Structure formats: structure tokens, C-alpha cells
């Protein structure tokens, strides 16, 4: 073998710990090797990673070489990075419906309709990209006004808010 283990271990560290892809020039300069030597070392390490049953891979991107996870394992990473994908609860849907039909609307106004506190429901809806703050209401405390997002329309397959089914007029009289 041409190289001792050590330069390969260093190269492994470099690919692991850098945020951006590494060019062969950078690799050669840190390892104090010629470009050819650096390349040979890199290819050796790439074979060890990519041709094995390991979970990680080293790939060449436009800007250089980078260590990452093999794409087939992405679902497991999603599972641990984004554990929340539960469907919305009924209270959350009710709150969303109120906002959709009454926007712009403040929290207090929503609570007046629902009769219960909605603070945590609003956070959930914001987190799920369904509603957002769209301004402030004039008056004491200048409360936040909420409205629906463009993602909300996309999820429901609507072109615009006007596409929301109309309501029975009389019932919408509650204020």
C-alpha cells in the first residue's frame, strides 16, 4: 500500500468535519501531499465507503468532495429529525377553519368564537406552515392578526381564497 493509514484517517476527518465540499487542492494542501497522491488516497477512501454496505458515502459534487449519508437511508433520518407528521386534531382544524373564513383575525377574536384558548393550536398551525402573522390590529395592545399561507391553498388544491366554498349567509352572522 502506498500510504500509511494516518493520512487516510486525516482525510476521513476532513471530509467528515467540513461544512462545504472539499476540492482536491484543499485536500492536498492540508495533507501536504501532491495532487496525484491526494487523489489516489481519496479514491481509495471513496471505494472503501461507496462499495461497501456502509451507511455513508463520499460523493463528488460540482465544488468538491463531500461525505454524506446514502440516499436509501433518508427515510430513517426523516424519522428522527422530523418525528411530527401526525394529522391535525379536530380543535386545530376548527381553528384553521375560523382563520380561513374570518382572516385577518386576532387570537382573542378566535377565542371568542371557539370559547376556549387557542394559543397552542396557533403555534401548531404556524409550525405546519398553514397560518402566519399577517399584521397588527390597530387599538390597545396592537394584537397580532393571523391569516392563511400559500401552502394552505396548495394543500387544499385551491387557486385562491375565493375558491373556499361559500357559507350559509345567516350563520356567518355571529361576531
Amino acid at each position, binding site marked *: 500500500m502506498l500510504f500509511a493509514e494516518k493520512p487516510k484517517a486525516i482525510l476521513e476527518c476532513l471530509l467528515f468535519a467540513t*461544512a462545504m465540499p472539499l476540492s482536491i487542492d484543499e485536500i492536498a494542501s492540508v495533507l501536504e501531499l501532491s495532487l496525484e497522491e491526494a487523489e489516489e488516497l481519496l479514491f481509495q477512501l471513496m471505494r472503501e465507503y461507496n462499495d461497501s454496505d456502509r451507511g455513508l458515502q463520499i460523493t463528488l459534487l460540482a465544488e468538491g468532495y463531500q461525505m454524506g449519508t446514502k440516499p436509501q437511508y433518508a427515510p430513517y433520518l426523516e424519522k428522527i429529525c422530523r418525528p411530527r*407528521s401526525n394529522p391535525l386534531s379536530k380543535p386545530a382544524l376548527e381553528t384553521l*377553519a375560523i382563520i*380561513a373564513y374570518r382572516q385577518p383575525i386576532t387570537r382573542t377574536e378566535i377565542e371568542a368564537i371557539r370559547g376556549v384558548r387557542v394559543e397552542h393550536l396557533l403555534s401548531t398551525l404556524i409550525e405546519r406552515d398553514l397560518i402566519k402573522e399577517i399584521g397588527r390590529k390597530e387599538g390597545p*395592545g396592537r394584537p397580532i392578526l393571523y391569516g392563511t399561507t400559500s401552502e394552505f391553498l396548495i*394543500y*387544499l388544491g385551491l387557486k385562491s381564497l375565493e375558491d*373556499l366554498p361559500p*357559507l350559509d349567509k345567516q350563520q356567518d352572522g*355571529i361576531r
Partner: protein
Amino acid sequence: MDYQIRLESFEGPFDLLLHLIEKQELDIYDIPIGQITDQYLDYLWAMDQLDLTIAGDFLVMGATLLSIKAKMLLPKPPIQTMEDEMEDPREELVIRLLEYQKFKAIIEELQIREMQQREVYEHPFNVENFLSGIKPPNPLRGIGAADLTAIYQEMLEVLTKVEPIHELYTEEYTVATQMELIGKLLSSKVEGLFFFELLSENLNITSIITTFLALLELIRLSKVEVYQEKPFGSIRVLWADNKL
């Protein structure tokens, strides 16, 4: 000055005191308080002469030392009480010095660990980048616009059935919710608000009375303070926490 040491190099008064004790190999359990007090104050004078600001904490300790020194000079009562001896005025200081000394002693070891761990690099994984590449699951999957409308209609129907429309106002105002509302309004207003500003647009007798009761309760709990500039003038309400 016997020691050429700058005050700023000490973490605090305990650090300086421990330095004086260790340097002279004094017994921490039997500190010659007169000698230590003089040396400690010498440092403060020296600092003062150099026009350096002396942190208040150093001055407080100076006063404490002087007070201990004074207590030590008081004549001891001729007969000791039977059970225990007179409390040593230095005792509290010694306890605190010993406690501080423990932490001072452990710092070096923690620093070594800190430096060791700095040698270990982690993968600079950026969750945001990773997730932006993944389409988030549709939180509304299985739900259409019509379903949302139905949910809304149903909710309105329930509300209209249960109570006549005008009754909704009484549902809206309870002393507890008004207290919360007042808190929200006031806490963001350092200059306070007038009482009428606390009332919502829906002025009716229930809301005014409930808001007033809520205000009285908040006054009782010392959460708010109220001022009236002249008799029958507007009442200004201030959130007590905002005063600090």
C-alpha cells in the same frame, strides 16, 4: 507593597483573600484577621491610587473584614457560657472561603476537559438544509376544502343552537379572561393605559363590569397600580412589573 500583583487578575475578593493566605502559608482555620485585613485593604488603596475602578464586590469584602476585625478586638466575656464557646466571628468567612476554594481547585481539571473536547470535531450537519430538501408531509392530507367548510359550518351551528347570539357576549367575559387580557394589554405598555382603553370594542354592561372586577382583583394581587390625576379624572392603570 509586598506583592506586585494587580487586582484585576483576581476573580473576586475570595480569590484575593485565598491568594494572601496561600502565599503566606497561613492556616485558613485560624486566619490572622488583622494582618489579612491590612494587606487586603493595601491592595484596594493601591488600586485607588492608580485611579482604577474597584469593583463594588471588593469593597464589600473590605467592609466585612473590618467588621470581623472589630468583633475580634471586642473584649471576650470573662465567663464563657457553659455549653458552647462564643461564636468565632471568622467562621462564616472561613466556610465561604473553603467553599470557593473547592471550585477554584476544580477549574483546572474542567479546563483540561474543555480543551480535550475541543479536539473532537462533529459533523456540521445542518438540520434546516437537510429538511428543506425533504417535502414536509401534508398536514391536511385526506382533508379537502369542503371538509374544512363543513367543520366551520358545524361549529357555527352548534354555537347558534346552544345560545342566542346576544348571549355570546356573556360567554366571552369572565373575570379570569379579562384579568388575562388586561395583563396582556398592560405588560407591553410601559406608560400604562386608561381604564376605558382596557375595554374591548364591544361595549356593554357585562364587559364593563367584568373588566372592572378583573381590575379590582389585579389591584388586590398587586399586579397593577392605578392613578387618577384629578378627582373624576381618567384612571390610569400601570402593570406593576413594568416599573422595574
